[in-house]
């Protein structure tokens, strides 16, 4: 480093891109862990194809990992990147538009041979590395494949195995650029390849070579310093959304004293919750990979009937399959948590892309009048608190709850100021005290002030009873086809959901004043982009406020009043305007939508442009 100049940066966005076999996700997550441990604030956005291995070198096969790290608080993975690392021509073509003007391209020249250029559909004879089309960027060309093979030539490994570690060369290089230590990744490699010492040696060697190459070669004139962020004091860790969801479930089980039963069927992007929970069986968690989505939710219902806390997770198409059973759970009035890690589109849609288009499905996607509480998380770390809340409501109110996450926050990562067990409030399951009941006249659907019923589980002597999906008489739970009773029960179940509003916090404004010209309302994973946009505009002196909904049903009691304090309302959503319709219908407000349906999260800029347009403050 002796000859290089050190520059200080507030925040940097790096986009690693390559073929889906190039180890891009691993490279990105290793850099994330190292930056997080150093104390940077971070936000990440993995973006990968739906195919396990799309044809090599093609545009369809490009896998990307965008990572924003800084010495300031960050809420998004960054609109555009400062550094674009491309392992081949397709990765460059697919991601170049993401690069900031004057940004740096690190290109693996080996990935720009005639075959790669043809596969990525560059015109015959055109090579972007040599035709000056990249002149406005800082282009660094390295034959990474060759450099890597050179450094491993005495390793005894075959060419194929050698090439597999070239992502570590890149990572080492980036570690040098941003002045990071290698030890975290070296420990990771030792753990990952503990059964093949030769692979540990090769990967560590290539990682170090990348680092030293940055130091000794003349290609880089400077490296950069991104200092630790000034986050609120406390203990931090790095966390991904699905991981936070899984930990939130475990915390809810511990804090309620219930055994957690997780029945699920693999689906992108929800499967990681199953993977995470399966690792923690010593928390007395039972995970069950069911034969299909219907069995997954039904097994969870069975578990809840038996006195455990049944949880199931899926993504939109799987939730569609669970619909009928969800209606059953609603009639049974048992605790049950249904997690929907949303992805793009109807049917199979865009399995690996993000969207928040299942809000209507969550609210209305069942037959009959079947209202249920719906709660949404707003960021990877928020998944913990939001899912814990969802569990609390489900257990304490004896009702199935739908928890909405999405692919963006499920796979994204950020630092998390994690709580301590003692600071997490207890959840109280409404188990019935059998000695307290008149057993002759036990009424399984007798309600308390929350309108919820007692939880009498099999094995409790004297409280034997039958429940089911047929309409039931209030209190006794006996089957009833009485028309008046049915209308009464429909309204009662709706009222039961509405009363939950008495047991959730009042809505707060996230940033800005409590009244003014424009309120931006968001829900779910648009949080970071909206928050950043509002912050940046406020810094320019523009008056705008941000409110973010966690509770989508019932809505917070003071929401209407807050809405009335603003002249205009903007609702950015990664869908065609679902919350927009709900709030318009609920409060007769002429709110405006900003809708993005591209399978991609909002950029900060997109939201800023719309806010300016609404406030007529276009520069």
């Amino acid at each position, binding site marked *: 480093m002796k000859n290089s100049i050190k520059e200080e940066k507030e925040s940097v966005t790096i986009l690693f891109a390559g073929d889906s076999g190039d180890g891009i996700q691993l490279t990105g997550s290793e850099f994330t862990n190292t930056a997080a441990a150093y104390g940077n604030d971070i936000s990440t956005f993995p973006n990968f194809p739906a195919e396990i291995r799309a044809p090599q070198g093609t545009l369809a096969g490009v896998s990307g990992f965008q990572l924003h790290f800084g010495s300031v608080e960050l809420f998004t993975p960054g609109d555009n990147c400062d550094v674009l690392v491309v392992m081949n021509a397709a990765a460059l073509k697919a991601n170049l538009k993401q690069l900031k003007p004057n940004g740096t391209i690190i290109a693996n020249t080996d990935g720009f041979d005639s075959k790669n250029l043809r596969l990525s559909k560059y015109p015959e004879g055109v090579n972007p590395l040599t035709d000056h089309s990249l002149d406005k960027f800082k282009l660094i060309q390295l034959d990474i494949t060759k450099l890597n093979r050179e450094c491993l030539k005495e390793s005894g490994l075959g060419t194929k195995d050698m090439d597999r570690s070239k992502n570590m060369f890149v990572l080492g290089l980036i570690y040098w650029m941003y002045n990071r230590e290698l030890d975290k990744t070296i420990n990771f490699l030792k753990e990952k390849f503990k059964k093949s010492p030769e692979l540990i040696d090769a990967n560590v060697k290539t990682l170090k070579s990348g680092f030293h190459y940055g130091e000794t070669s003349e290609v880089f004139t400077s490296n950069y310093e991104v200092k*630790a962020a000034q986050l609120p004091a406390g*203990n931090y860790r790095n966390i991904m959304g699905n991981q936070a969801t899984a*930990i939130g479930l475990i915390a809810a089980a511990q804090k309620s004293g219930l055994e957690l039963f997780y*029945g699920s069927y693999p689906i992108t992007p929800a499967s990681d919750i199953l993977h995470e929970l399966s690792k923690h069986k010593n928390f007395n968690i039972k995970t069950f990979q069911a034969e299909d989505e219907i069995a997954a939710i039904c097994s969870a219902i069975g578990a809840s009937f038996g006195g455990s806390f049944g949880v199931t997770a899926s993504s939109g198409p799987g939730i569609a399959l669970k619909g009928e059973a969800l209606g059953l759970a609603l009639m049974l009035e048992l605790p049950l948590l249904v997690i929907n890690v949303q992805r793009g589109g109807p049917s199979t849609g865009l399995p690996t892309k993000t969207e928040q288009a299942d809000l209507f499905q969550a609210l209305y996607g069942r037959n009959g009048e079947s209202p249920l509480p719906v709660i949404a998380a707003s960021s990877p770390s928020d998944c913990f608190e939001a899912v814990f809340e969802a569990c609390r409501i489900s257990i304490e109110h004896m009702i199935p709850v739908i928890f909405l996450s999405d692919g963006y926050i499920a796979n994204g990562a950020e630092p998390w100021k994690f709580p301590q067990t003692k600071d997490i409030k207890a959840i109280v399951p409404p188990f019935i005290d059998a000695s307290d009941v008149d057993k002759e006249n036990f009424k399984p659907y007798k309600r308390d002030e929350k309108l919820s019923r007692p939880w009498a589980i099999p094995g409790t002597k004297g409280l034997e009873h039958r429940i089911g999906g047929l309409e039931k008489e209030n209190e006794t739970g006996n089957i009833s086809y009485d028309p008046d009773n049915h209308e009464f029960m429909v309204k009662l179940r709706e009222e039961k959901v509405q009363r939950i509003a008495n047991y959730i916090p009042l809505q707060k404004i996230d940033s800005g004043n409590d009244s003014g010209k424009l309120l931006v309302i968001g829900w779910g994973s648009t949080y970071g982009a909206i928050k950043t946009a509002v912050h940046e505009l406020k810094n320019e002196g523009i008056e705008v406020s941000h409110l973010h909904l966690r509770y989508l049903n019932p809505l917070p009691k003071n929401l209407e009043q807050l809405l009335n304090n603003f002249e205009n309302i903007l609702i950015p959503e990664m869908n065609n305007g679902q919350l927009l319709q709900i709030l318009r219908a609920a409060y007769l407000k002429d709110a405006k939508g900003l809708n993005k349906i591209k399978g991609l999260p909002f950029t900060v800029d997109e939201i800023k442009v719309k806010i300016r347009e609404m406030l007529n403050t276009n520069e």
Partner: protein
Amino acid sequence: MNNTSENIKEKQLSAKDFATDQDVRWCPGCGDYSILKQVQSILPEIGVKREDVVFISGIGCSSRFPYYMNTYGMHSIHGRATAIASGLKATRPDLSVWIITGDGDALSIGGNHFIHLLRRNFNVNILLFNNEIYGLTKGQYSPTSPKGQITKSTPMGSLDHPFNPLAVSLGAEGTFIARSMDRDPKHLREILLRANNHKGTSLVEIYQNCNVFNDGAFEVFTEKGTKADETIFIEQAQPLIFGQNKDKGIKLDGFKPVVVNLNQESANDLWVHDETDRVKAAMLVRFFSDQTQTERLPRPFGVFYREERYSYEEALAAQTMDALNKKGKGDLDSLLAGKNTWSIR
């Protein structure tokens, strides 16, 4: 002292104690009444407390069953009783779980869950009421209806090749496979008791007469005039003998079962039933569909197959114990913190 009198009281439970105050609403003459009666009568004998018994059903006439049992119960949704019971049994191995289902419920809409329950071998009992018709939806053919059956949805005859429930169950790796019928209460009772005693999934197919939409579907097996020649009651270690005068038997000609006349041939050559023989069970369940063959085989009743195999809930509990032993009781604070943390002051 109190305990002792409690125990005595429990031992004195009778079939009546398992009946509820709900009116039983099956059609008059329905075969379900007989099954209900047998179930209610064996429960006081099996040594399980009433509060530890759970009946779970799907949808259909048979699935009203739980309402008539004074135990815990759930009348759920089409075809899903097996899936619900799986989650219940996984978390509550202590309960005695009974699944009540019909031919449509178990084999059509719930076919998937049915086979997976069998292969996992949860220790539950499935009572499959087979009447070869959809009763509750008023008379469409079911997956067990014979080809050509005229029903409301098949006025020109059903084209579907019927399911053989026991062959399906055996193919799904079931560990206890039996058949009985509503019109033979004594036999039904015996099979129910054996199903209860089996550790693992017990599948009992019960021929049940729907006297409204499919009356007489099993008449040849249940009525006096034909029963003896059309049925064979298989019993462990006993030769396969049947017929009005116990004069017919079944022997194996290579892999082909043939009916022999015992007046002409020795009983010593007959097939002797072995419930643990999977290969022979596969043949026995095939005494089934081809009613046109010249040498018609009688329909077997009894326990076709049983094997001892670990139950899912046992293995699941063992895994949890194993995790506890290896890692110690889960500590939430260390889970929250994870492996890499840093502090900001």
